[in-house]
Structure formats: structure tokens, C-alpha cells
């Protein structure tokens, strides 16, 4: 009996959130798939040890295993998803491409989140900065982002490539460029919440005992705006993955022979009439990942809303 009471007492609010999250079927499936795809790209190289960039001209243009049903296809178990026109293994490329696509997504999302939260908190907390920062946010929102992304990619590509090497340079460029063009919604939401929180009694109490501004923000305001930040994190992750693929698809992303999902799709479009699988697998990977992230966001929004929770 007493043990039960203790059990109830140690239960914190995140368990409530988790319980509510579990009732959202789409979100649970989404979470499962995201976990699966993350493990797939992280552990994949240890299980499927073929090198994604190794050329094998003898085994070029192999078809995936399921085309064996049609009888005439040229396929082998050594390359279950087939190979491309230079004999590189499709499964290995999917794994390696996924590593790049997902890491670009996570890092760009984190950058956008940090920027957005910083600007939102500053604008909400310091009245003098509010007008200036929010006008700036409006201004960035009225820039045509995709054209500007393309322009920035083209203009700064060679410099960063020279400074950090072809792969790291482009990675930094893509992440920064996506980060600085997608923080605005987060900033607006955070500012609105901070403005409302500032009027609450606990903030007044904290201020009356002389809490300095930075501690006020870190200890009192930030924990209370965590829920909208988490929801916009999921939106940001989906957005970053799609933007990176779109840039690669338009030929302004990562350099050739450096696989990402968008790049794999782009490289295969010319021969998709003969080899549709080379388009479909990377496209499916992007779409399902984004879909699952969006479902997680949906579930989180419900779970973090205390008005719905517990119903």
C-alpha cells in the first residue's frame, strides 16, 4: 500500500506526456519508424559491409531481388537492391546516404532551434529589443527562401570547399544555410509564450528576490517554453531533411559521388524508365522519414497540451 503511494509520488509530468503520446497511434508508428531508420543508417555499415563508393563494373545495372518474379531480370543475392550503372551497391548507398541526410536534418534543426529560441526569448523578455527583433523576423519571413538558398549554395560553395574539404565544407554550408532560413516560426512562438509567462506570479516572485536576467531565462522561462520548442523541433527536422534533398535534387547540394537520399534520387532520374527502383528506394526513405517525423510532431502537440492530457 505505502509502496503504491510512493510509486505515484515519484511519477513526474513526463510520464503523463508519455502516456498521452502512446495513445496517438500515428505518433507511435512514426517513432518506431524513426528509430528503425536511425538504427538502419547507424548499424547498417557494420552488418552490410560493402563500400558504397566501390566501383564494380562487372556487376553493373543489377536489378533488385523482387524483380526475379518477372523471370528475366538480372539479379543476385550479393546485391539484394541491385547496383547502379557503375556497379555500386544500392543498399550500401542508401545506408550511407541516410547517414548524411539524417545528420544534416538533425544539425540544421538544432541550429534553427537555438537561433529561434534565442531571438524569441530576447524579444519576449527585453522590451527594448522586441520591436527590432520582430521586425527583423518579419523581414526574413518575406524573403523568398528557396531561391536565396540556391543562390547562397552556389556563391559560397567553392570557398567552403577549399577551406574545409569537399565534404565537410558542403556539410557546414548546407547546415548553416538551412539553419539561418528556418528559425523564424520558432522565434515567433517562443516570443509569444515568453510574453505571456512574464506576467505570471512566479516570475514576479523570482524577480522580487533579485534573480538576474540570465538565470530568470534559464531556470524559469526556458523550461516553461519547452513544449512549443519540442513541437517546432519536429517540424524543423522534417523541413531540414526535405530542404537538403531538394537542394541535392536541384544539383546544388552535395558533390557528385557523395550519396545523400536526395542526391541518389537526382542521379537516377535520367534512367528511371529502365531502373525505377533507384528512384523509388531513396524517395521512399525520404518520404517515410518525413512522414514519421510529422506524425511524432502531431502526437507531441497533443501530448504536451495539458488541456487534452488525461482525457
Amino acid at each position, binding site marked *: 500500500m505505502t509502496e503504491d503511494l510512493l510509486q505515484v509520488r515519484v511519477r513526474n509530468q513526463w510520464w503523463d506526456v508519455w502516456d498521452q503520446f502512446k495513445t496517438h497511434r500515428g505518433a507511435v508508428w512514426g517513432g518506431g519508424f524513426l528509430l528503425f531508420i536511425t538504427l538502419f543508417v547507424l548499424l547498417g555499415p557494420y552488418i552490410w559491409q560493402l563500400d558504397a563508393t566501390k566501383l564494380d563494373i562487372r556487376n553493373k545495372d543489377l536489378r533488385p531481388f523482387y524483380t526475379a518474379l518477372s523471370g528475366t531480370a538480372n539479379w543476385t543475392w550479393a546485391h539484394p537492391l541491385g547496383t547502379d550503372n557503375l556497379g555500386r551497391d544500392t543498399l550500401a548507398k542508401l545506408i550511407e546516404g541516410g547517414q548524411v541526410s539524417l545528420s544534416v536534418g538533425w544539425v540544421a534543426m538544432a541550429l534553427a532551434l537555438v537561433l529561434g529560441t534565442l531571438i524569441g526569448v530576447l524579444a519576449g523578455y527585453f522590451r527594448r529589443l522586441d520591436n527590432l527583433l520582430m521586425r527583423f523576423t518579419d523581414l526574413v519571413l518575406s524573403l523568398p527562401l528557396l*531561391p536565396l538558398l540556391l543562390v547562397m549554395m552556389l556563391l559560397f560553395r567553392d570557398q567552403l570547399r577549399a577551406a574545409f574539404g569537399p565534404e565537410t565544407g558542403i556539410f557546414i554550408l548546407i547546415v548553416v544555410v538551412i539553419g539561418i532560413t528556418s528559425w523564424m516560426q520558432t522565434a515567433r512562438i517562443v516570443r509569444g509564450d515568453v510574453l505571456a509567462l512574464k506576467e505570471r506570479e512566479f516570475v514576479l516572485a523570482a524577480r522580487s528576490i533579485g534573480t538576474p536576467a540570465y538565470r530568470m531565462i534559464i531556470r524559469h522561462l526556458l523550461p516553461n517554453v519547452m513544449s512549443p520548442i519540442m513541437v517546432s523541433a519536429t517540424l524543423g527536422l522534417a523541413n531540414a531533411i526535405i530542404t537538403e534533398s531538394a537542394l541535392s535534387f536541384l544539383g546544388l547540394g552535395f558533390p557528385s559521388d557523395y550519396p545523400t537520399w536526395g542526391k541518389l534520387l537526382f542521379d537516377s532520374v535520367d534512367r528511371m524508365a529502365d531502373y525505377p527502383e533507384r528512384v523509388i528506394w531513396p524517395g521512399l526513405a525520404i518520404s517515410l522519414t518525413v512522414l514519421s517525423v510529422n506524425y511524432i510532431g502531431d502526437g507531441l502537440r497533443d501530448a504536451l497540451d495539458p488541456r487534452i492530457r488525461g482525457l
Partner: protein
Amino acid sequence: MLTFTIRRSLLAIPTLLFIALVIFLLLELAPGDPMSEMPLTIPPEVKEKMRLALGLGQPWYTRFYLWLYQFFVVEPQYWIDALFGTDLAQGAQRIISFQSRSPVFEVIAQRIPQTLWVVGMSYVVGVLIALPIGIISATRQYSWFDNLGTLISMIGFSVPTFFSGVLLIVIFSVNLGWFPSIYDTTLVVDDFSSLMMQIKQMAMPVFVLALYNAAQISRFMRASMLDNLGQDYVRTARAKGMKERVVVLRHVLRNSMIPVVTVIALGVPGVFGGAIITEQVFKVNGLGQLLIIAIHGNDIPMVMTLTFIFAALIVLFNLIADILYGVLDPRIRYD
């Protein structure tokens, strides 16, 4: 309301100027050089002359002012001349593309019809699909129709258009052979069979973009309808014995349309930007494709002008959305 409109319009001018400056400086400060693609055998002094011929010799603020002058004064003069046969421009220098050496606006004028047809049509189709879906989803919340609508709209904005477009090409052009995979701009519509051809080649790009747009708008419509269905005036309308049809279609729908109309207005400029990818997939030679070519070719005046036009569209439709909101909702008073 009128003062608000005038004030907002005046405020748009410095915003536009600032955006123009940001784009110009981005292009200017970036280390890329329009001459970098030229053959190395050209002697440096000739290269210098070519730079001067492109107008790159002057300091950046002179060139920025020149661009502004050409965009806002010279080009409108040419348009008026073309319309009324006057001679306002008197042969003044227009904005010239580095690549084609022809006026930027002439190239843009050639590309606009394709973009407007494909992209504009897809937006209209998307809205027409989205509104009924949103209304039915909201009136039958959590029914199978609503759940299906939720799933499809979730898929609609999760699947990037460059994948859904490619997938449609694989299925409908390669395997079934129903539609052409490449948009043929030279097609002249003058009889029934060419009209059918035009419809066929527009079908896939329009469908891809329409699905993407409908996904977002139908969610907004549903949420807005649900908000209004819980209001007191709906209960009053039901209580005085109105038919459910009248309650939903007259009372709730009209109130729910207020935020949805502004969302639709705000989405228009985004469509032009998003169409860049779809135009690339289906090889439609519209504005988006023009921008990509210009970016790859270091054609600074073309990139600058196109990007600015996209930005101006965003500012314009923000303004329209704000004004529409005030006109449609008498509770909102800006003054």
C-alpha cells in the same frame, strides 16, 4: 480601413527596398565572379574590358541605384510604350541578362505563361479540392472520411514534390503511357486534339502541386470549421430549428472562411517558389527553371530581378491577406 491600407502600402516600400538591398549585397559580397567561367586563354586586359562592358566597373552603390532606377522607372516606361505606343523610354538602358544579352523582362515575359498555367491552375485545383474535404472532415470529425483525409493530407505534405512527381512519371508515363513526362511549350492549342494534348501534359504537374497545396489548406479549413462549430451562435442557430445544411453552409462556413482566405492568399507566393522543383521534374520551362539556369550561369541581373520579383510577390500577398482579413471580419478594426 482606407488609412490602414494606405499606411500598410507605404510601409511595404521600405521593406521592398531593404529586401532588394539584402539580395543585391548577397550577390555582391559573395566571392563568385561572373567571369570565372570564361576561358583562361583570354588575356587579362581583355577580361577587364569585358567586366567593364558588363557594368561591373562601378562601385556597388552606383550599380544598386542603377538597378533600382532600371527596375522601377525604365522598365515600366517600356511597358507603357508597348501598351499605348508612346515613347517614354526613349531607348533608355534596360536590365540586360549576362547570358542572353537580351532584356531580362523579355525573357521573363516568355516564361510567365507556362508558370501561371501550371502553377496557377494547380493552386486553384488544390483549393477546390481542399475546401470540401475540410468541411466534410470537420462536420464528421473522427469518421472514416476524416481519418482518411488526415492520412492523405499528412502524406501530401510529407512526400516531397520531387518524389511524388517522379513516382507519377514512372507509373503513368513509363508504365501506362497515359501522359507525356515532358511539358511541351511549343504546343499550340487551336483544335480539340491539341487541347486534349495540353490537358494531358498539364495533368501530372498540376496534380502533384495540387495535392501538396490541398494537404495544407484542407487542414486549415478543418481546424477553422471545428473552432466555429463549437461556438454559441451555432447552438442558437440549431435551437431555432435551422436545418443542419443551413447551419453548416451558411453560418459556420462563412465565419470559417475568414482565416482560410488569408491562408490561401499567403500561400500564393510560396507556390511560385515551390514550383521551382516541380518545373524541374516535369521540364516545364517556366520562371523556376529560368532561375535555376540563371543561377548556374552566374547571370546576376537575372537572378537579382527574379528573386526580387518573388520577394515582391510575398510582400504584396502579405498586404492582401492583411487587408482581406480586415474586410472580411468586421470585428477586426485596424484604425
